[in-house]
């Protein structure tokens, strides 16, 4: 399965939000082993595009293919391969860090041991907090917990909405290295960012502009 080329192909995608067309019949291609930087002003449809790729937003027209199948097709195994990190961290405040992380890994059928979590947590300097409830962490720490999902879950496609925002430089480096490692292992990364990231090797840049709904790859 994994030997197959895992590319994400977008054909004729049209998406709109509140009756306003954001993107009109665009074709995009994200090949395996690449990192794509999506950029553009606020409201240009970056988040909407990501949500459409993730299958959350209903597209008006067009299709998204993963491994050559429509993402909704069971053969695409898309739900298992995709890791989508949005603005909201999607962590339960009532659960501990470890419980939160173990649950998401378990949804992919992967049992994550506490030592695995500890390894990541120590890289992110939050290992002392593992038993704490998520609600007790600072915003920065919470963000780090959400980022550790990238390492703990064996996804093949990362869609990350503003992952670098409000990160300290150390964590920023950690994240860019993880992204490059992941791409080197033929993963696909799509992320948005307002600023350029030093030291991150980007293979494709896509700019979304508000006015003409024009896409330049």
């Amino acid at each position, binding site marked *: 399965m994994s030997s197959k080329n895992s590319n994400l192909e977008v054909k004729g995608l049209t998406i*709109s*939000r*509140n*009756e306003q067309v954001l993107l009109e019949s665009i074709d995009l291609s994200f090949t395996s082993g690449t990192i794509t930087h999506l950029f553009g002003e606020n409201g240009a449809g970056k988040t909407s595009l990501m949500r459409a790729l993730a299958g959350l937003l*209903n597209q008006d027209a067009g299709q998204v293919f993963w491994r050559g199948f429509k993402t909704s097709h069971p053969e695409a195994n898309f739900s298992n391969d995709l890791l989508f990190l949005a603005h909201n961290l999607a962590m339960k405040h009532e659960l501990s860090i470890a419980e939160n992380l173990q649950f998401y890994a378990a949804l992919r059928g992967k049992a994550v041991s506490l030592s695995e979590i500890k390894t990541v947590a120590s890289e992110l300097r939050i290992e002392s907090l593992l038993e704490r409830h998520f609600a007790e962490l600072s915003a920065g720490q919470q963000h780090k917990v959400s980022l550790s999902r990238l390492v703990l879950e064996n996804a093949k496609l990362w869609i990350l909405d503003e992952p670098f925002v409000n990160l300290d430089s150390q964590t920023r480096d950690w994240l860019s290295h993880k992204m490059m490692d992941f791409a080197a292992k033929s993963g696909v990364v799509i992320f948005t960012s307002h600023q350029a990231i030093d030291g991150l090797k980007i293979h494709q840049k896509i700019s979304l502009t508000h006015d003409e709904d024009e896409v330049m790859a």
Partner: protein
Amino acid sequence: MANSSKSFWRWFHQLGSPKWFYQKSAKWLPWLWAITAILFVFGLYFSLYASPVDYQQGNSVRIMYIHVPAAVLSMVGYLAMAVCAVIGLVWKMKMSFMAMRAIAPIGAVFTFICLFTGSMWGIPTWGTWWEWDARMTSELVLLFLYLGFIALHSSFSDRNKADRSAAILAIVGAINVPIIYGSVKWWNTLHQAYSVTKKGAIDPQMQTPLFIMIGAFYLLFVILVIVRLRLEVINRETKSKWLQEELA
């Protein structure tokens, strides 16, 4: 056969185009109004004047000629909404959602008319304007279903979401309507309540005007839906060129 089904699909497809509908419906409306007016003239003449007086209920039986058609349309309206909902969800046809939204308040008004005339009828026959009669109770629940639909549809800022959510509710509601009706009927027999509206064979002299009135109500319903749907098209297509040319 194949040909006619092909032309049906073309018609179905055209119906999905707001522009086609907007232009064509402008031509349909005068005709529909004319036929409806004729039917109402005949229907009202027969039902208010040229039909027999009920030997038990006297002249108050004439309320039936409004009450029954309104009841029929209240149920047909909900069913039509559910059909539009299915078409909208399955074929992603926006016109279908617009029609669904156009029907809701009209259906609710017809349900209200049914309840209101039923109550008026109840005063001389039951001696009270409300009795927990099975049909009346079902109509009341149906009115609640309509109101729930309208409330849900109006509480979204995103129209797309409102359409799809309300469509799901319409389908769930339509599946429930027979269950509700059945259970209310059963509950009613259990409590041995009044069953004045339980009619046996209806006098043929009453049948004809009733059918004419039902026909007139059907057409009136269709007209009102078309009018509201045209407004809905104007509302949603404000930015499109064809509409601006049309309205200019």
